[in-house]
Structure formats: C-alpha cells, structure tokens
C-alpha cells in the first residue's frame, strides 16, 4: 500500500431542508468548493469517484450516485456507491483511500449526501429503524432512540454513568457549534435545559439526540505525487480501521474485552463484553487504525477527535471504545473536561478542560446528520483542522485546535446502526 493524502474538501451547510436544491446540486456545491480550495487541482486529475448515501427510502431514486457522477461531469470514469447505514460516509472515505492506496487510482473523489427532509421526522425515524432486523426488532417498536436508550440504561447500570454527564456532551457539542457556521443547531445550553427538554426514550431527551438533515460533503484523496502537485498543505491518512457487530442487539455476546495496547486483561476482570453497553466494532476499528498509525496512547498521541455522536450517550460509549479512558469511565471522562475545547466558556467548571477536544465542530448533535454526508463532513473538518485553515473556511478561529504542527494527528469515527459497522481513520498534518 502506498501513502494517501486528503488534498481538498467541501461541505454544504447542513439544514433541516434544502427544497431549492436536489442532491445533485448539493453535491456539486461541495465539490466546487473543493475544486476552488486547491488552486492547482483540476478535474482531469480525478481518476474516479465513490458516492455515498444511506437510504433509498429517503432518496426514492435508486442509483442516485450515478446521477451525481453525471452532474459533476465525471462520466465515463469509474464510480460506485457505498452504503453502510450511519457509517456510510466513513466507509466511503475508506473506499476512496483503498482505491488510491492500492494504486488503482491516483486521485479519487469521495462524495456523500442525504435528503431526509422529504418525509416527516417520524416517518424518517421509521425509515432509519428499517436498519434494524425487520422480523424481530422493527415490529416491536422500531426506533433507534429506543435502542440507544436501552444501551445507555445498561451503561448506567454497569458503570454508574449519569444523565448529567450525558447532558454535558450536549452542552459541549451544541456550544462548539456556535463557532461553526456549517452547523444546523448551534446553541448555548445548560445541563438543566437538556434534562428538561421533552423526553424521547428514557433517559434520552430531545437535546441528547441529533437531528435529521439535508446536506452533502466531498473529500478528494490522492497519491503523494498528485498531493505535492495540487495542494499546498495536504493531510496524510496514516491509519484506517473498521469493525462490525451483530445486527440484533439481543444476540451480542457477553465475553472478554477486546484490549488496546495500553490496556490489560486485569483492568476488566468482571466486565462482560460488549453486551449492549459497548461497541465492539468501534473497539476493533480503533485497534486496527492505532496499529497502522503506531498509536499506543490515544489520549497523548491524538490532537482532536470527530466522532459519531448521534446520541450524547454514544459519545460517552465511543470515548471508551477508542480507549481515551477505560470502559466504564466515559461519564467521568466528560465530567473532567478533557473532551471540551480549551478557552471556551461552557458555564461549568471543567478541571482538565481541553486536553483532547472531542467534536470541536459540534458533531452530529449540532451539525446535523445527513447520513451519507456525515462521515465525509468529519473528514473535511479534520482536514481543515490539520491544515490549520479553520479560520479561512469557518470565518472564526475559535474551534481551531492550537499547536497543530507536522505530525499532529486527528481521528475521525463513523458509526452505523447499533454499532453494526464502524470506521476509524487517522489523519496527520504535514
């Protein structure tokens, strides 16, 4: 495998609805942004594309990625669609990485989009729930927030995680988004407001949950040669990993923890793993990506993380899967302030504020979650962070991670279903 670089990216503003733009035009806007942002980059350098969108139900247009391919003027170059639930964007990113790493392409475009506004929110929830077993899970009351609520109830039972710790994630991510004009739902919140917002599925309230969105994002991945030619400050992809888990949560095993290099079996003597409280696929993805990138202590070796916080609870669970703290310590990890941005006033006392910011962009909770675009949005934010160009693209430097220098690393994490597909990719500043 040869080295692969991100050389450009673009995002449309995520919004509840973009009735004036169809998915082709949204993708085109993100694509044109990416073309403009790398001045020596041109369309002829692109050897092919990978498109991602989650739901044929939302789109009601099969082979919609073909229509983007033609709208962007990329025919007859190679193209395909990647689909993997919520992880669709992350899988798309890794698929483009594979195309370049293998030598099949020198430059591959990854584009993703979703148009969720075409049905009402509750119909949308029903569509998403069709990504659970339709014989055994969906008919019982198919509702993803319900599934995540059951997972976090067990997390609370096993580890003593509290709803206030979850609410802190909401305060953080919605607060970070105040400095990100791409975000759909930026606001200053208090723990009390999160808890007093309408209960959706106990213990998750409206402010614990991301919203549906329309949006698109693209990333351009290239070989070292193209990167040097087309881009002033390319970002290197130094680690990729992915994992999976059993579709029906009920069928998950209760066995031994999949350990990261800095952990020991004695850390988890009584823990039955993954059960329904942890994401084994996320741990697997992290383990592979860390191994490839040579990361032994993620808390020290990473500068920031953009992870799939469809729920406040899943951010806490994912921090554990990624080994930022031990299993069971995710709630206290948030409370300590480590995953908050430094220098931002969240209205609470955070002793270790800003040690390793998680979701500086605002994450899915605040940016929105146009499924096929989400994982690519994370990649674009990470790319800009590592290029130190957040100010240029967002018009505000607040969320720019300070002290990014050559060799600094950011992690992106994309997650599907109740943890059925998960990707972790690690990017490095050059």
């Amino acid at each position, binding site marked *: 495998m040869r080295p692969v670089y991100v050389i450009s990216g673009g995002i449309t503003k995520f919004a509840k609805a973009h009735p*004036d733009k169809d998915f082709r035009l949204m993708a085109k806007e993100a694509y044109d942004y990416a073309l403009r942002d790398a001045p020596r980059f041109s369309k002829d350098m692109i050897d092919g594309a990978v498109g991602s969108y989650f739901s044929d139900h939302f789109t009601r247009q099969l082979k919609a990625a073909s229509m983007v391919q033609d709208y962007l003027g990329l025919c007859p170059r190679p193209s395909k669609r990647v689909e993997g639930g919520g992880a669709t964007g992350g899988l798309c990113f890794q698929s483009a990485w594979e195309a370049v790493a293998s030598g099949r392409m020198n430059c591959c475009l990854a584009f993703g989009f979703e148009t969720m506004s075409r049905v009402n929110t509750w119909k949308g929830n029903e569509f998403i729930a069709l990504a659970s077993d339709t014989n055994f899970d969906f008919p019982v*009351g*198919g509702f993803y927030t*319900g599934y995540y609520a059951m997972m976090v109830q067990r997390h609370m*039972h096993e580890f003593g995680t509290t709803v206030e710790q979850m609410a802190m994630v909401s305060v953080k991510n919605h607060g970070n988004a105040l400095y990100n004009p791409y975000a759909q739902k930026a606001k200053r919140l208090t723990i009390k407001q999160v808890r007093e917002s309408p*209960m*959706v599925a106990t213990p998750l309230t409206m402010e614990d949950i991301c919203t549906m969105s329309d949006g698109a994002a693209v990333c351009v991945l290239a070989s070292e040669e193209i990167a040097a030619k087309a881009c002033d400050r390319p970002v290197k992809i130094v680690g990729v990993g992915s994992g999976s888990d059993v579709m029906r949560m009920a*069928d998950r095993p209760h066995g031994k923890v999949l350990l990261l290099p800095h952990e020991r079996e004695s850390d988890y003597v009584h823990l039955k793993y993954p059960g329904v409280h942890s994401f084994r696929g996320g741990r697997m993805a992290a383990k592979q990506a860390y191994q490839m990138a040579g990361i032994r202590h993620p808390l020290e070796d990473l500068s920031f993380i953009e992870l799939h916080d469809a729920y406040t609870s899943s951010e806490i669970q994912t921090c554990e899967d990624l080994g930022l703290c031990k299993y069971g310590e995710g709630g206290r990890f948030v409370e300590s302030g480590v995953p908050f941005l430094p220098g931002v006033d969240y209205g609470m006392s955070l002793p270790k504020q800003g040690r390793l910011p998680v979701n500086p962009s605002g994450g899915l909770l605040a940016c929105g979650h146009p499924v096929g675009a989400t994982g690519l949005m994370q990649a674009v934010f990470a790319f800009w962070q590592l290029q130190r160009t957040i100010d240029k693209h967002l018009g505000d430097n607040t969320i720019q991670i300070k002290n990014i220098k050559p060799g600094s690393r950011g992690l992106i994490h994309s997650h599907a279903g109740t943890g059925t597909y998960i990707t972790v990719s690690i990017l490095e500043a050059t």
Partner: protein
Amino acid sequence: MSEKGTRLFGVDPLILHEHYEIDYRHSYAEDSPFFVGLTKGKLLGSRCTGCGYTYATPRSHCMECGAPTAWYELVAKGRVHTFTTCHYGGEAFLHETPFTLILVEFDGINTLFLSRLKGIAPESVRIGLPVVARFAKTPSFKVTDVWFEPAEER
C-alpha cells in the same frame, strides 16, 4: 386527501405531494417455526448442535462455530436486562406511545430477547425485574405475538 389529485406545497421551488405504497409476499423461511411457536404459547430459541451455544432468538446456524442449531423451548420467565420507555417513535408506532421496550435475560441462556413490557408503570421498571412471557390469543404472526409482564416475585 385524494391520492390521485395533485397537491402542491409550494411553487418556487415546485414541491408536490407524492404517495408510495407496496405489498410484499414475505417469507419467514427457516425462522418460521418460531412464529408458529408463538401461536401455541411457546417461545422458541436455538441451541447449537456443535458447541452448545444457546440463543434466545431464532438463528438456524451458530455464529460461533457455524454448525446447525436445534429449536428448544425457552422457560417463559426471565429478568429485565435493560429497558426504555419510548414517548416518541417511528410513524408506524407513534400511536402506541408511550411503550416500554426491554431486553430479557434468561438463566443459562447466552443471549437476550427484545420485547415489549406491559402491565407496569414506566417509573417502576428496573433492571433485574422478573418478567414472564404472555402470548396473543389471536395471532398476527409477528414477533409482537409475545410480550412480557412483571412476574410475581418470590
């Protein structure tokens, strides 16, 4: 509202109503005995004929070792492994809210079972609560032909 007429939501851009509906011929295939079992008041799980791994759900081949499984009847009593009460839901289930979902654990069985919990106030549900399976008198041949209710605690 007529499904034949044209309904506009806006003219610039032009937004109109579209209806879509489809009927399927759906087979439960190798899982069929489970659904037939429910009509007889039996909850069937699957036990691996190779390694003995015991599932509380239908699965005709073991995901541990790949061997075929055999059906067995679960004891209808278990405990709440985890739970939630849904106050919203997918459109198909909105009219049933609030409803309580549980994962049920059974003694000596390796995996869990997803079901509804009825006959208890949401605030009284807790992890570890003993529950017992109840079966629909008039089957609909869906997994909802079984649900759980609190069992008498001894």
